[in-house]
């Protein structure tokens, strides 16, 4: 524990600071959006978006390395891919006469396949593991900018449109009859989900990010029965999971992403087992 705090202030360990700050900042967006994802029951959909992000990361890395497009930051690729996936899945669910879960599954795997193919044609070696499972060593100063910007955007939008999101999640048809475009707000919510997912892809990777989006909200939801307290609880829990995960992974010299996810999972299962009401 003491070593961890020493490491935090160590100038040579700047990445640890950046990663922890990025994680804590992301908790805010994760708590808010995760709550919507849990109550609207679109966890699987959010999982689809998260996995397809790899396609965007792959494309961005390829453009950077093979064609010298320096502006093409992997986070930019991730953001674009997440938004495209969210809109595609949303539109398919709303308009196409398709089974939604099949469409999600398709986008999920196509996104990952695209990403891996881009990695393979990129000159030099790209380690897909760090994108799949996260790597705090990759978190740099520039990531903090992305996280802060997206975080602010998500939080402001979620607060401004709180009533609309609540109404659309609770009873889509009624909201529509009150002159609120349920479809628009549903897509809007998916886009916010997409942006939020991108925030933590660096730290926990595209595969495990869904755990941090939904587990804090799911745990929080067991203890409160209104939306705002559920969000506040989820933000707090997400922050705690993050810090505990960082400390444990540092102390035991283990990869941080999986440790954070395990901490969240153990708490979730523990609460589910104890509080069966």
């Amino acid at each position, binding site marked *: 524990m003491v070593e961890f705090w020493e490491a935090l202030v160590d100038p040579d360990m700047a990445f640890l600071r950046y990663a922890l700050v990025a994680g804590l900042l992301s908790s805010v967006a994760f708590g808010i959006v995760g709550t919507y994802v849990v*109550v*609207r*029951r679109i966890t699987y959909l959010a999982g689809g978006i998260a996995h397809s992000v790899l396609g965007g990361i792959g494309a961005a890395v390829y453009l950077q390395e093979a064609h010298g497009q320096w502006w093409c930051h992997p986070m930019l690729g991730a953001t674009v891919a997440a938004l495209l996936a969210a809109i595609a899945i949303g539109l398919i669910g709303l308009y196409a006469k398709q089974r939604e879960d099949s469409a999600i599954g398709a986008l999920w795997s196509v996104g990952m396949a695209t990403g891996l193919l881009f990695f393979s044609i990129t000159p030099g070696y790209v380690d897909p593991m760090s994108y799949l499972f996260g790597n705090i060593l990759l978190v740099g100063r520039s990531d903090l900018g992305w996280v802060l910007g997206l975080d602010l955007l998500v939080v402001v939008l979620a607060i*401004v449109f*709180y*009533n*609309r999101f*609540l*109404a659309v*999640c*609770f*009873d889509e*048809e*009624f*909201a*529509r*009859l*009150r*002159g*609120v475009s349920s479809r628009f707000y549903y897509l809007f919510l998916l886009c916010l989900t997409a942006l939020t997912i991108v925030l933590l892809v660096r730290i926990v990777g595209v595969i495990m990010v869904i755990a941090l989006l939904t587990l804090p909200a799911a745990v929080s*939801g067991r203890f*409160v*029965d*209104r*939306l705002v*307290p*559920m969000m506040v609880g989820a933000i707090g829990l997400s922050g705690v999971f993050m810090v505990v995960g960082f400390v444990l992974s540092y102390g035991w010299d283990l990869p941080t992403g999986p440790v954070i996810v395990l901490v969240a999972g153990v708490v979730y299962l523990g609460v589910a087992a104890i509080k069966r009401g």
Partner: protein
Amino acid sequence: MSKDQTNSSAAISLRRVYFDYGAISVLEDVSFEVAPGEAVSIVGPNGGGKTTLLRLILGLLHPDRGEVRLFGRGPSKTRLRVGYMPQHVYHDFQFPVSVLDVVLMGRLDQAVGRYSKGDRRVALESLDEVGMVGFSRRPFSRLSGGERQRVLIARALACRPDLLLLDEPTANVDSLAESQLHELLAKLSEGRTLVMVTHDLAFVSDMVSKVVCVNHRVAVHPTEEVNGRSIQDLYQRPLRVVRHDESLEPGEGADG
């Protein structure tokens, strides 16, 4: 022109409406009107087209042929004047909302950001009207079936509607709650334009002036005429029904 004026005076007017889902015809040649201030019940067997009719009136579906008018215009333009209580709500039984949160949704068209004090006042008045004002802070998920229906009626009232449209207000409630709801609905029907969808004709027969019987086609009867006649007559086509309200007449549906 004069024809339009007759139409625009009606709260609801359907003229020769046809609707089908693909090859399956659901409604055929449906015409009826509901005048302002009138209390009307829509009855019919499951699968007879009640819900489709309701969705046409609300502009959630569009007729294949014919014309639906709500306050003299296309429903999508005027449906904000309707207070609607759906039969089914929410995806999640544990959805974390309070009773007041739910009722405030009736004010959704008024508020882009936060609900105003005025919206809150209207919501509380609506809760008072259904006798649930003491429940405003309770979690919606912990209410009984009857309490839930009252809150959803309050949400519809919070729209301050010119027309109250209730879909199966007594679905999923026990008999005690049903008799309490009956009292409430009788009170609400006074001086209001009220349309109530129900499978239980006996429940509404003393509070509505007109019964719209839907089973593929529609037949409209004054309530006095309905009482004492067989359901089969009302629907104008052969029909096997389970009747909760009266004993079966000899030879009718005895094999069901």
